[in-house]
């Protein structure tokens, strides 16, 4: 596990927590697409946040689960990891 969450890890989490399969390369192209267009709804995102918190042992910011796009989400969670490190 690296100390920042990569797009590869996000793709893995989307499959595990929300059952949505998207290749990391494709996800990079959809950085600014809405999670809903990718098939991840609000409960799915909540599941991803929960899984990250358990993996890294650090709380994520409350706004993380309200992120509209992968870019916003990764910015939020990686800032939190950096701060907590």
């Amino acid at each position, binding site marked *: 596990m690296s100390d920042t969450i990569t797009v590869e890890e996000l793709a893995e989490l989307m*499959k595990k*927590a*929300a*059952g*949505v*399969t998207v290749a990391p390369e494709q996800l990079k192209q959809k950085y600014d697409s809405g999670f809903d267009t990718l*098939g*991840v709804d609000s*409960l*799915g995102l*909540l*599941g991803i946040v*929960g899984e990250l*918190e*358990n993996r890294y042992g650090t709380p994520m910011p409350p706004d993380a689960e309200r992120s509209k796009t992968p870019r916003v989400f990764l910015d939020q969670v990686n800032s939190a990891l950096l701060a907590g490190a």
Partner: protein
Amino acid sequence: MSEPLPRRVAVTGIGVVAPNGNGTDAFWKSTEAGISVLDRITREGCAHLPLRVAGEVRDFAAESAVEERYLVQTDRFTHFALAAADRALDDAGLGRAYTEAAPFSVGVVTAAGSGGGEFGQRELQQLWGKGSRFVGPYQSIAWFYAASTGQISIRRGFKGPCGVVASDEAGGLDALAHAKRAVCRGTDAVVAGSTEAPLAPYSMVCQLGYPELSTETDPARAYRPFTEAACGFVPAEGGAMLVVEGERSARERGVEVRAWLAGHAATFTGAGRWEQSRDGLAHAIRGALAEADCAPEEIDVVFADALGVPDADRAEALAIADALGGHGRRVPVTAPKTGIGRGYGAAPVLDVAAAVLALQHGVIPPTPNVFDICHDLDLVTERARAAEPRTALVLSRGLMGSNSALVLRHGATKIP
């Protein structure tokens, strides 16, 4: 808005996922042949429990039937429901193009008994094993009884009236009646039915509290209603979904009316009060006949509740005689569920599917595993009986006290 509301409501589609058939054709073939698929339970974590025999669905690949993003957030009982709903809609010729153009014209009603026990058990194990942080967010929606209605509606974009009925086994019939009422109020079609998945450790432990449950280990002897040796019922998983549609909509779309939902009634007599269920069931039969404008002698076949407990069997046989008079002792009675298991809310919906198929094929399926009966009923056993049934009566009683009856008429029946 100025169209008259429908007076007649039909079954235009059937979708089945059953222990004796993954699909309607396979289901009917096994049902007509009187094949019993009751067997020892093979589910992990269940071998030490006293419930040994059930009807398992062994050839259903959820990943082929349902998209992964729905699979992760649902229990097996909803996987069955999503697959059965797809099949019913295909059977009725209600494709996505049609329903996406008119989303408010289709609703969903399901009946649920045991809910998402397997999913819930997994999350509860996380809770008590690791802590609350390890419980996933889908626990909030996956195990509760309305999950199937919600997910069918979401997945297919059905924005018409939706609901869920929780009245145990009888709920399967009540959900169809609920669907019929929605159609009579102006909805074109309602996907209605029930699927259950009670064969996981937590769900099975919940059932062990029912004194009516059979703990017999021999599948051929575990579930034999109406016999001297009756020792209770065994459960099943799976179920059926139907498309319930108004006459006008069916005619406009040019689809076949498979049968008419002619009448229904429900009563309540209290949990496990089998002697009292006699009156309750007789009352429900009379109410259903009245709504169907059907005389007792017009009933050509009865699909029995067939609980398999002597008091309950006696009450049912007497209720049939009370409500149908002399005809009650002569009318063919059958209970295909003795070869499948009694799948809680799904059981009477599978009975309705079998009844519609019996009306269409002119054949009454038999009651597997049952031979000499000790009640004054003409129970069809051993093999199917050729007949030309025009009208069927389906009965269902809930362990917690509900009694329901449904009358179906052959699709070719003319308006009087």
